[in-house]
């Protein structure tokens, strides 16, 4: 031992404390950012230059088409004759149909009112700044659908607007929001049921989930639309939209159940044990301990399912419901607007994007907010 301690550098005592120094210039600031993100290796440098070239060739003509040489007003495609750019005139002209479908113009205030009320109800569910989140969540699932039904379908003196007149964005939002709002609680119950220790409940949940997941959504819609009436007793006629809604909700709740189950399984067993050891019963520990954590883990998966669901509502056009996409499709078969597929579909795509992107951003915000810094 004593010999080795004589070898230099094996024994040392630091006498001067080293203070923090700024990082080298090449790693911070604009130059640092460029180096790290755009030119970090020869391959990346080539890809960066290639990307810039691509943008250079695509962007100017696109901007030209969309903004510079486009026409924004007019009464038919005749007003766009000889124009190179987009003929956006179709959008303001057909705006009513894009949004409301064939909902009578005089009654459209009912749709608007329903939408405003829905947003007012949704706000406290989404934000924690407004008190009463739990009540709002129960209300939006249990009470609001009745209000929406009365307002949009008609009752108590409001003239009835049959659902085959509903269409456009309105129909898309009705389908998406009903399926989203009901599939989450249903999916949670199914996920809990699938992990239940009671064999009958577990078997029923597994059968339900596997059955709905094994069938394509289109088949579900076809079944709901064409097969169900065959089996239904004489005289009983489910509303077409209602059948689509039920099909959608069942289908998405099966997916939701599996997403939630993923979250439940990701939780360490100790959480449940700690809840039990404190004397919390099953529903208390699920509600207070397990689900808040499990759902937080699977926010990306839940929102993924929601977004998928939102876009899948476009499939109802195959059973003849006039959702946003079908309205767009039919509007360009009008002689007045022939040949304007690009404009109509781009507008529809933009609407879809607004809703889906908002959901995506909300989920990111929620994830950040709920992050309490545990492992």
């Amino acid at each position, binding site marked *: 031992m004593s010999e080795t301690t004589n070898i230099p550098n094996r024994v040392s005592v630091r006498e001067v404390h080293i203070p923090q120094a700024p990082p080298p210039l090449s790693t911070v600031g604009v130059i640092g950012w460029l180096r790290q993100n755009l030119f970090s290796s020869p391959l990346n440098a080539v890809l960066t230059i290639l990307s810039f070239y691509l943008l250079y060739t695509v962007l100017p003509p696109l901007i030209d088409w969309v903004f510079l040489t486009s026409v924004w007003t007019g009464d038919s495609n005749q007003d766009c004759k000889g124009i190179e750019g987009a003929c956006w005139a179709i959008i303001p002209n057909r705006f009513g149909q894009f949004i409301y479908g064939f909902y009578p113009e005089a009654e459209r205030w009912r749709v608007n009112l329903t939408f405003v009320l829905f947003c007012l109800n949704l706000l406290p569910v989404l934000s924690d700044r407004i008190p009463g989140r739990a009540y709002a969540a129960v209300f939006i699932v249990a009470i609001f659908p009745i209000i929406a039904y009365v307002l949009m379908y008609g009752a108590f003196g409001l003239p009835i607007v049959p659902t085959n007149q509903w269409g456009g964005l309105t129909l898309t939002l009705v389908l998406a929001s009903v399926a989203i709002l009901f599939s989450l609680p249903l999916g949670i119950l199914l996920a809990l049921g699938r992990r239940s220790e009671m064999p009958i409940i577990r078997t029923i949940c597994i059968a339900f989930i596997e059955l709905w997941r094994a069938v394509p959504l289109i088949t579900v819609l076809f079944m709901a639309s064409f097969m169900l009436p065959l089996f239904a007793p004489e005289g009983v006629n489910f509303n077409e939209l209602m059948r689509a809604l039920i099909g959608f909700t069942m289908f998405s709740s099966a997916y939701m159940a599996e997403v939630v189950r993923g979250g439940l399984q990701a939780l360490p067993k100790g*959480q449940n044990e700690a809840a*039990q050891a404190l004397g919390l019963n099953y529903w*208390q520990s699920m509600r207070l301990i397990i689900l808040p954590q499990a759902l937080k883990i699977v926010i990306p998966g839940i929102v993924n399912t929601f977004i998928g669901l939102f876009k899948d509502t476009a499939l109802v056009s195959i059973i003849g419901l006039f959702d946003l996409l079908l309205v767009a499709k039919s509007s360009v078969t009008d002689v007045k607007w022939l040949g304007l597929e690009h404009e109509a579909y781009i507008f529809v795509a933009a609407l879809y994007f607004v809703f889906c992107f908002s959901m995506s951003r909300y989920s990111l915000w929620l994830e950040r907010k709920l992050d*309490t810094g545990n492992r």
Partner: protein
Amino acid sequence: MSEKINEVRAPSASELSDEPVIQINGMNKWFGQFHVLRDIDLTVYRGERVVICGPSGSGKSTLIRCINRLEEHQQGSIIVDEIELTDDLKQIDSVRREVGMVFQHFNLFPHLTVLENCTLAPIWVRKTPKAETEEIAMEYLTRVKIPEQAEKYPGQLSGGQQQRVAIARALCMRPKIMLFDEPTSALDPEMIKEVLDVMVDLADTGMTMLVVTHEMGFARQVAHRVIFMDDGQIVEQNEPKEFFSNPQSDRTKLFLSQILAH
């Protein structure tokens, strides 16, 4: 740790009450084919502090987890505070209300603040008003010496602090019995002392404690009885002084020589 432990309070059996609070008779448990607890007979008296030690896999954790029914036993009987543990969920819940537990990995609820961790069970299980539970919680957080962390989340605390919160959380239910399942095994060495100190303080209040641990210093200092388990059986039990200075069975001697060797 050492100064405090050397003063050896040597708790004597005479200060104990003769009122049994846990009675385990002829208890057997299997994990599948594996006979994990064999013919366990154990009576713990009110105010008694029992340390359970033994090699890993000897069934000591499973034993104390049976006492609050985190594990189900298959034969024999367990009576806790005059309530027998059966399939009856109500009885299980009322036992759990009286028995606090501290886990090796703390198992704090990461989505709740320290204070909320402590008040949750009193609010929902004991139905105590919120303001009152917060007062109680702050009292116990003060006793485990971290009142200033009340508004933080568990993820922001060190391991030792988390374990002290876990002890406070269990105490907020005002349990009659405390179970500790290797409370210091997951801690960095420099944090073990702060947790043991809290446990020693708790022992001073006369709490009935069952502690699974390898901290033999702690056993010497506070335990009335040390139980050595191996292969699912209680091999030897004695008061600490005798247990360490004069172990009887060869298995105990071997175990002690291995853990006290360095």
